[in-house]
Each structure stands twice: as structure tokens, then as C-alpha cells.
């Protein structure tokens, strides 16, 4: 809480622009308020309106203090359903990445107006059949709604709009041209502490915002889900497991094996504290090049996670501050875990690992990224790996499935 307040006061003076032109309120809007706001603005209904809305969306958003993200009228338009839009309104340029559920495409508007030719986006495509088979129906709905609510945060990918057709779900996102932090990490083998600290700091602000302003647990932190924008700042993608928790714990096991917190593995009910555990694993992997618990057999990973302490290699040497913050995050007992104990994110920010970091400057992107992605033009995708084409034949989404499931996808 204190953190948010601090950001607000100091930044109004510093950045001026966005905060002085928007009404500043301390409390995040209630769900009810949000609903009303959503009703108020007209949704794009036709393909043309939809395309114009998409074209108008500009990446040049100013970072707003967390408490104002939902107040900014531009952000309120973002993340909503576009009834008229369809995949035919886009030209699919190439695949940017694939995951378990989805394929993400670099896209352009189809037949763009002169001034829109340079504009590119990322389109995440999920097949309804796959979503149903993998029992991810709840999860994709959470993904869409959480992304819509957090649109406008400087380090989170922006959901511009979503739509669907007979067999697929689409989420149009701002394109993060720098590629995955994962790619840079694997190529570099490991990051030095400056680099690790830079990314960790931006992630701390993401988690503070998600947990303390939005009540959301992210649940899939890993280098593969951290992208870089053109300036080398973090954009968190893949909210496939993000969930609004309120003050309750949740039970569905999800995440990525190496990054799962012990309480997730042991089905003890978990909370936002899992993200701090994962941040510990992430900093470790940044500094050493591999996660602290690994094995080709997931069961062996899980056994280690629940019972073994994090050990550090002799080479490379890791500073005592870094070791300490990793150990404090990777504490099995949640009631001792940094980030989850009193002070929450504020306590994390004052850990010696982050000594000398000016958090407002982090939030307002004043620090220069340690890696500036070699992006030559807006639609440049050289920072992304190549992926094989999608299999031509795919399981049909038949009428019986439609009847049973389409109602579950009505929010898209």
C-alpha cells in the first residue's frame, strides 16, 4: 500500500503528463465500477470499427501509477471484445512462439490504410478443441479477464482486444519485438548481477501490482514468458494461469515444473506467495544459467523442491546479497517467505540485493535496459526463433462440442 502511495506522489511531480491529466484515486476500482465503465464505452461492433480501434491503439502509452491504470480512459477501452473483428482482418506474417495451448503470430492489419502499414501486433490463437481437451476452459477465461484488467501496466503485455470464431479464440496483444529473455539467457549462458537485478526489479513491480492492487496470482513466471520491448524493458506475457484470488487460496496445480512452489506440488492450497518462490528460482537461473532444481524426470524435480535447500555452485561466484534474496524467496514455509511476510513487496524492494535502486525510476523506465534488442523496424522479428508450421489437419470442433461448450467462450 505504502509503495503505491509513494509512487503516486513522487511521480505526479516527476512525470507530470499522464497523472495530472487523469483523475487520481487511491483505491482501485471495484468490480462493479469496472462493469459500469465497460458498459459505458461503446464496443466496436463492426469489422471496420474494430480495425479502426486496433489501428488507433498506439504503443506510446505512458506508464501510469498502478492505482490509475484502470482510471485511464484509454486503458478502459483496451482488452474488450470486438464483435465485428475476425482473423480475416489481419495478415498473419509469421509465428512468434508456440506454447502448450497456443500459437502466437506476428500480424498486420489486412489492407491497411497508408498510415497503418507499419503497425504490427501479436495475435495469440487458441483452438477451442485444444482448450477443452486440455481442460483449460476456466484458465483461458481468467487469462482474458485478468489481461483486460491490467492493460496499461508498463511491464505487462497489453491486451488490445479479443474475438473468436467458430473454432478458435483470439487475443490481440501489443507486439514485443525484443523476443524472449529466455533466448538471451541461453545464448549468454548466464547474466551478470546488474542484468539480473534490472529484470528482477521490473518483475518485483509487476508482482507488487498484480498481488497488491489486483489480487491476482500470476503462477507461470519463467524466462520464456518474459519478453523484451524495443528498449529492452520487460513485458510479461502469457496470463494463461493468472487468477484473481481475493483473499482465498486456490488449488489447481499449474505452472512449469522447475518453477513450481512446494505448496503447489503438495496440493496444500496456494496463494500469491507462489510467485515470490518462482522469482527466487528465476534470479537463480539468471545468475547461474540453470534452475536450482532440475532433472529430466519431473518427479525428481518435485522431490528436490519439497525437500532440498537451494545450493549454489562455486562457479560463477554469486554475491551474498543475491544468495540471500534467493534463499528468502525459496523458503518452503510460506509464513517465512520474503514477499509473503509483512511489508510484502515493499520488504522485497528494501532487500540489500536491490540496494541503490530507485523504484520510481524503475517504474517510469528511466533505467536503460542492459540488453537493447536489435530491432531494426517495427515488424522486425529477428529476435524470435523460427517455428515449424502448424499441422494442416486438426481435430474439428463439431456441433456437439459447440453445443456443450460455446457458452463457456462467450466472453471472447
Amino acid at each position: 500500500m505504502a509503495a503505491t502511495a509513494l509512487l503516486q506522489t513522487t511521480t505526479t511531480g516527476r512525470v507530470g503528463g499522464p497523472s495530472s491529466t487523469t483523475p487520481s484515486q487511491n483505491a482501485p476500482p471495484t468490480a462493479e465500477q469496472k462493469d459500469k465503465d465497460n458498459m459505458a464505452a461503446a464496443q466496436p461492433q463492426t469489422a471496420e470499427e474494430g480495425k479502426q480501434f486496433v489501428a488507433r491503439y498506439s504503443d506510446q502509452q505512458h506508464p501510469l501509477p498502478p492505482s490509475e491504470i484502470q482510471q485511464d480512459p484509454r486503458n478502459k477501452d483496451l482488452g474488450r471484445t470486438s464483435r465485428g473483428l475476425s482473423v480475416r482482418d489481419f495478415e498473419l506474417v509469421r509465428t512468434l512462439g508456440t506454447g502448450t495451448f497456443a500459437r502466437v503470430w506476428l500480424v498486420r492489419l489486412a489492407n491497411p490504410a497508408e498510415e497503418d502499414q507499419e503497425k504490427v501486433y501479436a495475435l495469440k490463437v487458441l483452438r477451442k478443441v485444444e482448450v477443452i481437451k486440455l481442460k483449460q476452459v476456466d484458465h483461458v477465461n481468467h487469462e482474458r479477464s485478468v489481461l483486460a484488467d491490467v492493460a496499461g501496466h508498463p511491464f505487462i503485455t497489453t491486451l488490445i482486444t479479443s474475438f473468436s470464431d467458430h473454432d478458435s479464440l483470439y487475443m490481440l496483444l501489443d507486439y514485443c519485438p525484443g523476443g524472449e529473455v529466455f533466448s538471451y539467457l541461453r545464448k549468454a549462458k548466464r547474466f551478470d548481477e546488474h542484468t539480473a537485478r534490472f529484470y528482477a526489479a521490473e518483475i518485483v513491480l509487476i508482482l507488487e501490482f498484480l498481488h497488491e492492487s489486483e489480487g491476482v496470482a500470476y503462477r507461470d513466471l519463467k524466462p520464456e514468458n518474459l519478453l523484451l520491448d524495443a528498449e529492452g524493458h520487460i513485458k510479461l506475457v502469457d496470463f494463461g494461469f493468472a487468477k484473481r484470488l481475493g483473499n482465498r487460496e486456490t488449488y489447481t496445480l499449474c505452472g512449469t515444473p522447475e518453477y513450481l512452489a512446494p505448496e503447489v506440488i503438495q496440493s496444500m492450497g496456494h496463494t500469491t506467495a507462489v510467485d515470490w518462490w518462482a522469482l527466487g528460482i528465476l534470479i537463480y537461473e539468471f545468475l547461474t544459467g540453470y534452475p536450482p532444481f532440475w532433472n529430466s524426470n519431473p518427479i525428481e524435480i518435485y522431490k528436490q523442491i519439497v525437500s532440498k535447500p537451494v545450493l549454489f555452485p562455486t562457479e560463477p561466484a554469486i554475491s551474498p546479497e543475491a544468495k540471500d534474496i534467493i534463499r528468502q524467496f525459496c523458503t518452503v514455509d510460506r509464513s517465512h517467505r520474503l514477499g509473503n511476510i509483512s511489508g510484502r513487496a515493499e520488504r522485497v524492494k528494501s532487500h540489500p540485493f536491490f540496494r541503490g535502486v530507485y523504484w520510481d525510476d524503475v517504474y517510469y523506465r528511466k533505467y536503460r535496459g542492459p540488453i537493447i534488442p536489435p530491432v531494426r523496424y517495427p515488424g522486425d522479428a529477428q529476435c524470435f526463433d523460427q517455428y515449424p508450421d502448424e499441422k494442416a489437419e486438426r481435430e474439428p470442433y463439431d456441433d456437439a462440442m459447440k453445443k456443450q461448450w460455446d457458452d463457456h467462450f462467450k466472453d471472447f
Partner: protein
Amino acid sequence: MSGNTFPGRRGTNSNPFSGSTLSGESEQTSLGPISKVMEEEENDTVTSPATASFNFAGKGSSTFGSPFGGDASGQGPPSSFKQSSTDGFPAHYGMGRRTSVSAESLNPTASSNDNWTPPFHRKTPDQITRLKKSIFNNFLFSHLDDEQSSQILGALVEKPIPAKGIKVITQGDQGDFFYVVEKGIFEIYVNPAGSLQPGPDGLGKKVATIEPGGSFGELALMYNAPRAATVMSAEPGCLLWALDRITFRRILMDSTFQRRRLYESFLEEVPLLSTLTKYERSKIADALETQKYPAGTTIIQEGDVGEAFYLLESGEAEVYKKGTPNPVKHYTKGDYFGELALLNDAPRAASVVSKTEVKVATLGKDGFQRLLGPVESIMRRTKYEPGVEVIDPLHKK
């Protein structure tokens, strides 16, 4: 239980049944793990700023670079990114992109309308003893409480495997069940292709055998992943116990969920904690530790310095004061005591002794402060007037 396999990663050479769940001599038959050369440094201190290696600049110049260093080092796409030294890198670490895993979402019974109760299959005391030995040092079961354990033991269902050569699980197939061997011998085969192949050598290599008391398929209790091996009966007349993921997860989830809600409702009743927000109450509920005491245990001793507070979860307890032979108060489920310990270090004003076996949920002052900060500032939110007595005779649940 049908459904589709969640496309997880599969270790090419991994034996999913390695280690402690295998019976027999070979405790460490696991083929997967590659031991890392690691040095444990438990004695690091972070108290010495002199060792801090970062050179942060003053406020004025913070805009550029430090404390993150300032040099943009990427001059090409990630694929041309410069490599640092390779030493100290584990040789066998798989460097590929990692995909996520997920179980089906389940909602606790108590929060929905369905009335689910775990299945119950009767077993002999001998069978129970053997099963306990087989599963309760497995990391997926070792932390369960008594109630959860007995529900799990009840839910395990008999699965006879009458003939030799029956494939109980097939490599590459979806996995929904975990098995414990009651009788007979089973063989594990791994095909390097990642799944059972047609033809005479389709099973792949035999990597281990499992004897009575052994178990396999535990990953299926977490999420639906492709089976990493084929398991086949090696003789006729085998017998297995089976447990499916949904049953396992529901048992754990429902009891945890109910206990959490119970704790939260208990905490709501404690006047001393009435100013806590919902968030804070759930934090405390999360940290409460369950403890069991047999009848006749002195839980709190009059005159001792109080360090923890207690919620009585089940059973009965009585309050005694020195010089009075009869109990001065009687506690039942939902009552709490010792909460003034959170506030001050005054000695306990009375003793609390369990009358029956009791289950209490307890949290120390240190835990409370760690989670919520100084107690004093929380108390200051309201004017809670602590009585002189630890045992406030007016407090009623």
C-alpha cells in the same frame, strides 16, 4: 476417466519410478538424476555492505545505468548474442524451452453444491499397515494429516491383474492413476522413442522390477502427463491398489479448504483480532499450525511467559488456577485461549489442560509479527481493553 493427455515433457532416459518407491535393495536405481557438484554455503552474511559489488550512483544520475550497469550489450539478435564462459555449467541440463503443466481445475466441494464424499473401500488391518508403509514416505503423501491419510487409505481401490503380461500402464499414454503393488511382480520398460512402439521390441528396454510394497505412476496424481514407461505384470495373480488423481486431489483440497474456512471463522470470533482485515485473517489462517495433544496435557502453564495463542479445533480442555482444585472454565470447539501472549509478555494467568484428546491450531507471537508486523500497531487500530486475566471469563464464542 477419459480425457486428453497434457503434453508434458518427457525425459528420454528417465525412469519415472526411480528411487524410494521401488522396493528391494536398490534404493538408488534412478537413472535420471545427475548429481551436481555444489558447494553449500550456509554461512554467508548479507550484513556487510563493504562486500557489495554494485556501484550505485547518487540520485542525480540514477537515470542512467546503475545500479544495473549501463552497457547495452546486445548488438545482434539473441542467436548472435555473445557467450560467456562455459565452465561450471552442468553438462546434462536440458537447455530447451519449457512448457507449462496444468491439472484440471477443481473447486472445493464446500464452495459448490455437489455433495462429494471420497470413495471408501474396506481393507484389513494388515493391508492398511502395508499400504501405510508403502505410501506415507512418498513426498506426495508425507505431509498429510490423519484425516486426509485415512481418507486416502479408504479410497485406494483393489485392481486384480490376473495374468502375466498385462500392461497396467503404457508409455506415452495419458495417466490418471497411481498404483501400489499388493501382490506379484511388475516389470518396467522404457522405449527411447518416448512411447510404446508396435513390434516385438516395442516395449523398449527393461529398466527395473517392482515388488510388493512398491508403487508407480505418481506423476498422474499431479496432472495428466504422458506415461514415461510401460509397466507389465511379470506373473499371474497380481494385485494392485489404485488411486486416481481427481479423488486424491479432492480429498486434499476439500479438507484443506474446510480447515482454512474453519480457522478464518474462529479468528473472526477473537475480539483481540477484530481489527484484522480479511487479507490479514487469511494470512494468519494460512500460518496456523495444527497440533494434537492427548488428554491430560498441560497446553498452557500458569506463570509461564506466553508465546503463542491457540484455537481449539476439536476436543475439550479445562482451565485451572493455582489454589483452586476444580476447573474454573471449560473450553470446547471454537474457543480460543492465550491470545494475550500476542500483546505482551505477561505470565500466563492460568493453566489450560486437555480433558480429551484435543486438536489445536496455534501461532506464536513471532509468526504473527512476521506476517502482519508489530502487534501493537494492529491493536492500536481499536481500543481493545485487555483484561487483567489471560482467561477472560466474559469471552464467549
